[in-house]
């Protein structure tokens, strides 16, 4: 297949050999699990269990609320200790409503989940999406968008191609790589099920050329499948970005602010395909995931299958702890991951990696003035002019930055990575996007306020009117009474 290139991107040292050849290990069920009620994009889930209740593995703990949301299930059996705010696995470090589950050590399944489905392909496509939704599956690449919503939309919009994203372009991360090496048949089955759910004609599994073992494994598994093709793409960050992957494979551009479905394409991560397989075949909800634990500060870097809700400290312990005190801890990879400073926060559905780096691995330096070298422009895969946008944002001229195409920025960080002056370019863009969003909210709010004020005014006017009418009526009644009294009196007089 002919590939298309996208402009820009960078080639950071991928550091993948630290973990790429080691098998996935299984984390024993930890004593306590902390399950945030929002591990996805959309509305938070609402608990259906109470404090003190005992639950079984796979049991529903919180149901999804609204159209875009995802439920949360118990990763093991045990007792609900608490439902309340705890520090979120989020760069803000703000609290989030979290269910605390104490394991009883028996890891006993709920009976409802035991029956298996022989042939998922006789299920209605809609039914598959529904089951994916009730299993709480979200985009496993880190975007955490509820998968069922994407499936349903794709079925409605009629897509022709399903792209399975095995790009994994973030340095250090190898969880998708290991999954493809060790469980290719399960992934292929998940792909078949998704193809059926969206009624698409073909699937393309895209894998970067720095994962030879995964390519061999997936090719061998899919050799007999006519509608599924493994395509090797060049290792180029951000290949795993949905837009750029589509551009590379099909040479088609997703319209600005649009979705893959707009051009008939659906992109899912390999981890999502695997989760779909487990749910549809075995009714297993999303209660565990594979996490890459890596970085030069970790004693035994490796991939670990972790129950959702496990504190990071347990996972790091399992990998032999820290070799040296890390200078930086990241949730996710170094390009797009978030810095964290708290090991008590849990692994959530979107946690693809825990990366601990020593100061040697960091090239952090103080920013210097822009030398207008244009490297950020060359490296931006979205065709933007980062230096100009950042200059405007620095002076809080957010509108100017928006005019230059800020919404198209995918926050990949290529610009910051390639800037010789170490200007925190992508940080400026993250800030500006948030500030613009807030501004819009404020505007909306003041419009609403204006409406409320108008409503109040008209209400007051109506009340005033009503009062006047009532007074008039009362007066008329009184007059009438007086008149009748008078006429009575007159009558009496005359009689």
């Amino acid at each position, binding site marked *: 297949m002919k590939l298309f290139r996208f402009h820009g991107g960078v080639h950071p040292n991928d550091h993948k050999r630290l973990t790429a050849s080691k098998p996935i290990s299984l984390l024993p069920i930890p004593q306590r699990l902390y399950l945030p009620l*929002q591990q996805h994009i959309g509305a938070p889930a609402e608990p259906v269990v109470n404090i003190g209740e005992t639950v079984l593995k796979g049991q529903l703990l919180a149901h999804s609320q609204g159209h875009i949301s995802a439920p949360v299930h118990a990763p093991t059996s045990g007792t609900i200790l608490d439902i309340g705010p705890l520090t*979120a696995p*989020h*760069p*803000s470090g*703000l609290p*989030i409503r979290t269910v605390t589950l104490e394991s009883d050590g028996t890891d006993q399944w709920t009976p409802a989940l035991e029956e298996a489905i022989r042939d998922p392909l006789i299920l209605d496509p809609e039914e598959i999406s529904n089951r994916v939704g009730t299993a709480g599956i979200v985009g496993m690449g880190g975007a955490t968008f509820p998968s069922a919503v994407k499936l349903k939309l794709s079925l409605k919009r009629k897509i022709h191609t399903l792209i399975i994203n095995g790009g994994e372009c973030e340095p250090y991360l190898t969880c998708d790589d290991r999954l493809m090496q060790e469980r290719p048949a399960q992934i292929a089955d998940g792909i078949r099920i998704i193809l059926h759910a969206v009624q698409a004609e073909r699937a393309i599994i895209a894998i970067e050329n720095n994962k030879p073992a995964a390519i061999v494994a997936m090719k061998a598994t899919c050799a007999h499948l006519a509608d599924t093709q493994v395509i090797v793409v060049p290792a180029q960050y951000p290949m795993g970005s949905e837009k750029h992957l589509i551009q590379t494979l099909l040479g088609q551009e997703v319209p600005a602010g649009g979705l893959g479905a707009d051009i008939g394409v659906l992109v899912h991560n390999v981890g999502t395909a695997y989760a779909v397989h487990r749910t549809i075949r075995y009714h297993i909800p999303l209660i565990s995931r594979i996490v890459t634990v890596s970085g030069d500060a970790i004693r035994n870097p490796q991939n670990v299958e972790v129950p959702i809700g496990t504190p990071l400290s347990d996972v790091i312990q399992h990998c032999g702890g820290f070799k040296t005190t890390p200078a930086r801890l990241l949730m996710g990879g170094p390009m797009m991951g978030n810095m964290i400073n708290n090991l008590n926060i849990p692994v959530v559905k979107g946690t693809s990696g825990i990366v601990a780096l020593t100061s040697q691995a960091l090239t952090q330096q*103080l*920013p*210097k*003035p*822009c030398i207008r070298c244009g490297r950020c422009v060359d490296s931006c895969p979205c065709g933007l002019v980062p230096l100009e946008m950042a200059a405007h*944002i620095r002076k809080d001229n957010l509108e100017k930055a928006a005019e230059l195409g800020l919404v198209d920025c995918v926050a990949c960080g290529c610009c910051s990575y390639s800037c010789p*002056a170490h*200007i*925190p370019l992508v*940080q*400026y863009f*993250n*800030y500006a*996007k*948030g*500030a613009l*969003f*807030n*501004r819009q909210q*404020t505007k909306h709010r*003041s419009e*609403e*306020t*204006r409406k*409320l*004020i108008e*409503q*109040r005014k008209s*209400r007051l006017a109506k009340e005033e009117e009503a009062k006047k009418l009532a007074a008039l009526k009362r007066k008329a009644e009184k007059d009438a009474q007086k008149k009748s009294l008078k006429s009575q009196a007159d009558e009496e007089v005359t009689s």
Partner: protein
Amino acid sequence: MMNLSAVAAMTLLGLSLGLLLGYAARFFKVETNPIVEEIELLLPGTQCGQCGYPGCAAAAVAIANGDAPVTACPPGGRDLAKELAAKLNLVIDLSGVVEKAPTLARVNEQLCIGCARCPKVCPTDAIIGASKQLHAVIRDACTGCGQCVAICPTESLQLYPIETTLRTWQWPKPLIAH
């Protein structure tokens, strides 16, 4: 016959007076400065009086005439000042404008005596509660203007800064100078 001519006379009178009034309205029209209207639309419209003028309309006139600075509206903050400056083609120094953190009014249940004064002064009808009943503030409708705080006899109503939650948090601006 009498009736008919009376009707005709009245109609004629009505029509001619109407026309006269219509023309008079055009002819004697007081020119309101269109910029005043535009400014009024930009202002929050809560009539909170924090600018020192009796309401947003009066403030708009003052700002348009240059009697009040574009930074006069505290709830509008920096963003509003900028918009106003752009509208009036002014170059302004915003370094002195302190951004007031947005606030919301909240009723302290222990102190509320149900006097029902606050619902009457709230410009956005954000307070509910009948007399002798505990009052409550509807978060979504409250603009934090503080009218209710001023009238509350027991200091039960107070303004509190709006807490940042995961849903409202945004990345801060990079601090490092370069």
